[in-house]
């Protein structure tokens, strides 16, 4: 029983990583109505920018906001430079460009900073929380920041004019344009925000898994899974989904004999697919009515 409790707690701690990434995934989905395969590499690259700034001697709390601003600008630039020219191309062509971005960012980061793992500082420290040996201060801090981001996003999308316009621009560009929303810039803004949230996720995740160019590839998978499980239209669902993926995966790995350890991720994914079969828009997502 004690092990069960420990594994659930560890699952929540790992789930915080996925939840953080899932938030970034949902952010971009709200802004452009696509899943962005390059999201993880963008977060990784932002984290390397923070690393480089600190290597140049800047203190953490100076490097952090600069990284967010640089990432925001980078996100806007990606939208304006890379995606604006192919705005009318079919969706799968966009997906392929995401994959191209992924390759470019991964390879460039490896070229500049090489592929060995690097430690990354945590603002919360890595001591055990309250002397309990199960969850570290950093992991607790990460859960806190994720929840805070969630509240901010919720307020932004629900109550601010710009947040509402952004959702409108993604959901129905033609109608949004008619009511005066500048759809193009809303997309760019969404990219910028997604890049900045990704940067926060990367900076929080790196102290746990170590910084290296491939660090986000597998985490993005879990982030997608969490976001889809929770419902892509709901930030709260994404966070919940991320935590659930972490917990289910740990329990499968610990308690299913023989194949559990070797197949913990596939088992978690199968459960998600099973949930989706019965609840096709995710746990907390809105059902989209299709018009003929």
């Amino acid at each position, binding site marked *: 029983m004690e092990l069960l409790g420990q594994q659930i707690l560890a699952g929540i701690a790992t789930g915080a990583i996925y939840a953080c990434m899932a938030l970034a995934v949902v952010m971009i989905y709200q802004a452009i109505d696509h899943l962005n395969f390059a999201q993880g590499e963008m977060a990784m690259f932002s984290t390397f920018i923070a690393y480089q700034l600190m290597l140049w001697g800047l203190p953490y709390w100076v490097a952090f906001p600069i990284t967010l601003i640089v990432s925001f600008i980078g996100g806007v630039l990606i939208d304006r430079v890379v995606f604006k020219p192919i705005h009318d191309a079919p969706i799968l062509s966009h997906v392929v460009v995401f994959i191209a971005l992924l390759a470019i960012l991964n390879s460039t980061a490896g070229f500049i900073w090489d592929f060995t*793992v690097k430690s990354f500082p945590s603002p919360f420290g890595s001591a*055990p929380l309250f002397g309990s040996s199960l969850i570290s201060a950093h992991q607790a801090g990460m859960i806190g920041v994720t929840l805070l981001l969630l509240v901010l996003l919720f307020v932004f999308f629900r109550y601010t004019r710009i947040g509402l316009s952004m959702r409108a621009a993604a959901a129905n560009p033609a109608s949004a344009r008619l009511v005066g929303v500048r759809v193009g810039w809303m997309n760019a803004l969404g990219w910028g925000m997604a890049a900045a949230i990704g940067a926060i996720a990367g900076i929080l995740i790196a102290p746990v898994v170590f910084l290296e160019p491939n660090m986000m590839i597998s985490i993005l998978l879990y982030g997608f899974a969490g976001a889809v499980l929770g419902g892509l239209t709901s930030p709260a669902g994404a966070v919940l989904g991320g935590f659930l993926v972490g917990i289910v995966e740990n329990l499968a790995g610990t308690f299913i004999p023989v194949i559990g350890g070797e197949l913990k991720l596939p088992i978690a994914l199968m459960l998600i697919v099973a949930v989706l079969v019965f609840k096709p828009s995710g746990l907390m997502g809105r059902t989209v009515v299709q018009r003929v």
Partner: protein
Amino acid sequence: MHFDKMSRRSLATGILVGAAFAASGALAQKNYGPGVTDTEIKIGNIMPYSGPASAYGIIGQVETAFFKMINEQGGINGRKINFISYDDGYSPPKAVEQARKLVESDDVLFIFNSLGTPSNSAIMKYMNAKKVPQLFVATGATKFSEDPKTNHWTMGWQPSYQSEGRIYGKYILQNHPNAKIGVLYQNDDFGKDVYKGLKDGLGDKAKTLVVADAPYEVTDPTIDSQILKLKAAGVDLLIDFSTPKFAAQSIKKVAEVGWKPLHIVNNVSASIGSVFKPAGLDNGIGVLSTGYLKDPTDTKTQQDPTVKEFFSFLDKYMPDADRTNLNLAYAYAVSQTVAQVLKQCGDELTRDNIMKQAANLKDFRSPLFLEGITANTSPTDYFVLEQLQMMKFNGQSWDFFGPIISAEAAKS
């Protein structure tokens, strides 16, 4: 004594002497295989410069730099080395394609130090059918050296994973006969190979001593769950058969949860730069491992005149490389070994003779080998390096202790 003589005669002088021989021995029979001329030897190589194992790409970079140095010093027996290194992204089908390109299109004399068990498994049959040497493969999988009869053209270099595992087994039996062992292993050929060696080394006691094991996938973001599982099983001796990133995570996590088992990490993850630094040097104090190369981060080693040559090589050809990365020393030492083989070949640079000379290494030493470790091969023994020594991390560098253990001794 023999060792002293060898170490004083540095590699550079060895090459010069070789060159002098070549010049004076113009009468000697010249016999060239593909890729060899009076001025050049073509050598092929396959590395994962991209993809999941790209951290090992540095090995190919060091080797490229090494042969550049050799060429600037006049080459080997007067011939420059043309080192052609391709990327396979750690994908077996791509490795086959690149190997065929090297052999059939670039006409290399042989392929040297191609990296990874999957990639080398994929090309082994082809290389042997084509009778092209697949020399000193960069993996410790036993299968590349154990059968010189069937796979005459394939040879490993580093101590095999299984013999390393056996050495841990013997060490535990002798020093911690009542340990409760927990094994964290990477769920692939490498992790399973070392684990098998450990079980062999423990012999009959393996069943009772190993109380828990936990596999992880290279795609797992963290191994927290596995560490907690092993801790909950009452393990007091934790062994990591993992690659650097996960060994670093495990050292850090063990410290974070306030667990104090005796901790062993395998040689692949004994790199201070890519494991202990990220994990926190203090967290690693007391961790055990085995080694066969000198530890370049040790200040005593840095004073060693033969090792200084290695540092001046790095200063000149790879000034930006992280000195604490163990792969640099690995790549340098294996390149020296192949240079020795080429020297021994003289002017008979055929594929046949490459294998003959590679199987005829007698007490060869790279200055980076630990004292007492030598490379020996014969036509029936393709295991180039078979000795290891236990070592303990002191927070800064490794302290070696105990005798040099040979894998043969650990077998009994």
